[in-house]
């Protein structure tokens, strides 16, 4: 009965739907096209002119139409409508939007980005979810945000997602897993973006840039520094600005680092750093002094992967420093209190630790120091560090990076020889370290020759002969500690064994000793060091080595007789007579105007005398030269018997000063000088 009455009296039942299926398919959303739209009592609100496309009314459904299905009863988009992002009340007056429909007052609404006429997501080329253009390559976003399309002003898009990102699974990635606009700006969520709390987007940034997030609590955590630092920062910061946004602007930034602050073009690649680390910047306590290790001007010749450097890159502040990480080992507590850095901290990319990681990354030719006696790990340095309070870095113990002088010497500007002073800070003559007491190879002398060894303004210094980074260029190049020094190592800059190359670099004229009977080098010593000691010599003249006591009354005699004696190496070349009356002192050739002093050097008992002296062994003999005549130069050490033209004699007798006293007898005196009988006869 009920059914019958329903059929009878319900005017709606059995009535043919006025609009056919085809019409309804469109009118289900385009209500304005309904055939009853012209009826006076129709119920559709005025929707004809509330959507515009490029300024003209468009036949596009409005937001209320979208909501009429997406309110949960056809599709559930309640959360989307409630989303804080891309609501219709956005101010878009600064955007140039073309080809996309806008709602009343020119504001965006659902239909600006979406259309049910897009291909379904599961269809080939489909745009999910019913979008007007692709978002997988950010095209749709950039239609409106075209001012953010250019590179170098914005965070890059279309780049591959980081392998270990911490974004939630729901995070959006584009074609080929690329980072796109929606990766950071997930629309239609109640939360604006992952990890964003108010103005603080640092958690979002750190989801991909986790390494950079080590900046927290460091002196580059500027919001925190502003709180901790007495007097705050010398520039204003908007409240609640996060640690990332203080320096970086994801959009409309400056330069590759999307820098939020102004950059000075003249600072080039270091402008980001110098913006703060200048004398008037917020990091003025650590102002860059434009001195020390070079930056900007030099280019790398090779790749240095450990620092992320490619050949051709310029040396910048960021080559050594990582502004996001105070401590590369992450083992030091942070305070944001502008604490003084060490070789482990100081925003260094790598520590200057016992292996000198940072410096040797580029200066790999200095790596040999690590296992040498100059390594800071050896016991002696512990005392030094304790006493001086210096940093312990393998390199920074001696080198200063950001000073005009790259050596760590106090009052460097007033020091004449920096490297000598630095060397002496350990090798100085002190009660506790008497190692260098005695006579040494003279320093500070003007070499007057042009060669490729380092000097102190052209003058000889420690590093002329020594390279403190390499124990030996011939032997023991990387061996460890407390080795017995020899001519083959001893931190000598040039190989000095078996040939005395280092010595001969300066003393080239002494090369004549080679292959003579005085070439006494062995498996430890070269031809020079048999007789000479650069350090701890017996005396300053000739820096002659200390020998056991031997016969002889003069400085020369005692030295020569150390070999030319019965027990000596030159036992078969012992002169039977040799003395010259010392009471007759002679004026030297240079004073007489007849030649150079070295032509016939004269001596006191313990040293040369450049004015008046007596005749000694070296007066007539030059132990370095077998013959003054090059044609008679010795080619082998066969202990030949010499004559008046050889025998290590300096000059032809006719040019000597002997004639002044000995007149015509000079020749005989000279010839029989070492003959005890005949020398008396004449």
């Amino acid at each position: 009965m009920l059914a019958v009455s329903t059929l009878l009296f319900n005017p709606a039942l059995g009535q043919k739907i006025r609009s056919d299926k085809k019409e309804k398919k469109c009118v289900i959303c385009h209500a304005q096209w309904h055939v009853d739209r012209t009826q006076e009592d129709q119920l559709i609100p005025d929707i004809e002119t509330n959507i515009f496309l490029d300024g003209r009314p468009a036949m596009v459904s409005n937001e209320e139409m979208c909501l009429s299905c997406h309110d949960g009863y056809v599709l559930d988009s309640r959360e989307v409508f409630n989303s804080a992002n891309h609501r219709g009340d956005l101010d878009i007056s600064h955007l140039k939007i073309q080809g996309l429909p806008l709602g009343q007052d020119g504001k965006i609404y659902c239909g600006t980005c979406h259309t049910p006429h897009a291909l379904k997501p599961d269809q080939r080329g489909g745009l999910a979810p019913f979008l007007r253009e692709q978002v997988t390559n950010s095209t749709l976003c950039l239609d409106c945000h075209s001012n953010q399309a250019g590179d170098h002003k914005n965070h890059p898009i279309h780049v591959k997602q980081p392998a270990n990102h911490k974004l939630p699974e729901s995070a959006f990635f584009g074609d080929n897993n690329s980072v796109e606009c929606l990766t950071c700006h997930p629309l239609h969520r109640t939360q604006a973006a992952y990890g964003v709390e108010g103005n603080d987007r640092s958690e979002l940034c750190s989801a991909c840039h986790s390494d950079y997030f080590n900046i927290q609590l460091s002196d580059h955590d500027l919001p925190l520094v502003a709180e901790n630092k007495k007097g705050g920062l010398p520039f204003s910061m908007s409240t609640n600005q996060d640690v990332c946004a203080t320096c970086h602007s994801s959009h409309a930034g400056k330069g590759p680092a999307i820098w939020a602050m102004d950059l000075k073009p003249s600072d080039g690649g270091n402008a980001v750093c110098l913006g703060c680390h200048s004398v008037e910047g917020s990091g003025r306590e650590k102002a860059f002094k434009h001195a020390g290790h070079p930056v900007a001007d030099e280019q790398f010749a090779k790749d240095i992967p450990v620092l992320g450097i490619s050949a051709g890159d310029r040396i910048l502040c960021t080559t050594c420093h990582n502004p996001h990480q105070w401590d590369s080992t992450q083992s030091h507590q942070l305070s944001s209190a502008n604490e003084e850095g060490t070789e482990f901290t100081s925003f260094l990319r790598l520590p200057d630790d016992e292996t000198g990681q940072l410096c040797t990354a580029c200066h790999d030719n200095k790596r040999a120091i690590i296992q040498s006696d100059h390594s800071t790990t050896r016991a002696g340095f512990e005392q030094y560090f304790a006493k001086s309070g210096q940093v312990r870095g393998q390199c920074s113990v001696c080198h200063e990076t950001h000073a005009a002088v790259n050596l760590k010497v106090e009052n460097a500007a007033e020091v004449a020889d920096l490297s000598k002073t630095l060397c002496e800070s350990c090798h100085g003559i002190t009660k506790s370290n008497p190692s260098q007491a005695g006579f040494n190879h003279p320093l500070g002398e003007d070499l007057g020759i042009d060669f490729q060894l380092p000097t102190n303004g052209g003058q000889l210094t420690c590093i002329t002969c020594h390279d403190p980074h390499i124990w030996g260029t011939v032997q023991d190049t990387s061996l460890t500690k407390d080795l017995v020094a020899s001519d083959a190592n001893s931190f000598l800059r040039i190989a000095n064994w078996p040939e005395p190359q280092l010595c001969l670099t300066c003393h080239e004229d002494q090369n004549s000793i080679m292959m003579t009977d005085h070439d006494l080098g062995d498996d430890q010593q070269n031809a020079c060091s048999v007789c000479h000691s650069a350090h701890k010599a017996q005396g300053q003249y000739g820096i002659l080595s200390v020998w056991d006591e031997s016969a002889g009354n003069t400085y020369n005699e005692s030295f020569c007789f150390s070999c030319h004696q019965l027990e000596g190496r030159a036992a078969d070349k012992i002169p039977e007579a040799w003395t010259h009356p010392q009471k007759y002192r002679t004026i030297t050739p240079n004073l007489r105007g007849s030649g150079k002093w070295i032509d016939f050097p004269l001596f006191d008992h313990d040293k040369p005398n450049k004015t008046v002296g007596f005749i000694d062994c070296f007066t007539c003999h030059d132990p370095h030269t077998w013959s003054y005549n090059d044609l008679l130069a010795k080619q082998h050490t066969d202990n030949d018997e010499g004559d008046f033209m050889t025998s290590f004699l300096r000059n032809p007798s006719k040019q000597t000063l002997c004639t002044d006293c000995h007149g015509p007898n000079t020749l005989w005196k000279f010839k029989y000088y070492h003959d005890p009988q005949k020398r008396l006869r004449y």
Partner: protein
Amino acid sequence: MKILLILLFLVFSLVAQPAAEIIYRFNKGQMNYPTDIAVLQDGRICVADGVNGRVLVFKKSGKFKELRFPAMQRPLGLAADLNGGLLITDTQADVIILLNRKLKVNSIIQLLKVVDATDVLPVSGDMLWVVDNDGHRILIMDRQGNIESEVGRKGSSGPTFNYPASIAQDSKGQIFITDVLNGRVQLFSEYGSYYGQVAKWGITPGSMYRPKGVAVNENGAFVVTDSFTGVIHYYQSQSSKGALLSTREHELIRLKNPLGVAWGNDGILWVVESGSGDLLGVKLN
């Protein structure tokens, strides 16, 4: 006979067009896109505030308390249970939550993911009619979730649906189901027999564009909300010609995306205005 039929038609189609007045407007701005409403036996009014993951329970004074349960994520449909409790459908969590009189969780029915339960109706025999919106059908299940039968399929004629939304039952057992994109209300017996439809799809009075909420009072009068046109259709009975709620001044009452609707024990008609997030109390004279 024809004259008799015409007379009968005129009698039944004489509609006392009620003058309506909005006398309550609660909670402006505190709810976000609320959907459904149910009036409990004790007169309290429950509103599904799904975006905020809660159900609000109002007194007529406007004071409210909120219900949250671990199993509830985004509630959408509500129904007063026959035992004085409350039934909640959640399309995000795919559950139906059964609350007792004290509004404590009694049991939870876990639905299959494919079931999009936008509303539920308790019927005699401890059975539930569950509106499967995406499935274009009604699932009839026991309170453990065992489906005993289903009603309808996708279509536009006869006992079919194109996105069924809400469900209600009159005192005689007849069941009313809004059929959103078909623009009508489908009528069924409690046993699933199809009785026919009320209204048609359209944009003029007597037709519906986006019917969503439906509620029947003890006298058989029922109302249907139209979320796009914003009007509330009023039917004195299922056989009467529909009217639109208007003020005394014959001004049509237009709401901003009205959805769920329910009769209060005192005759007040409670309507969820989803677009504004408000709960409205409408007095009909």
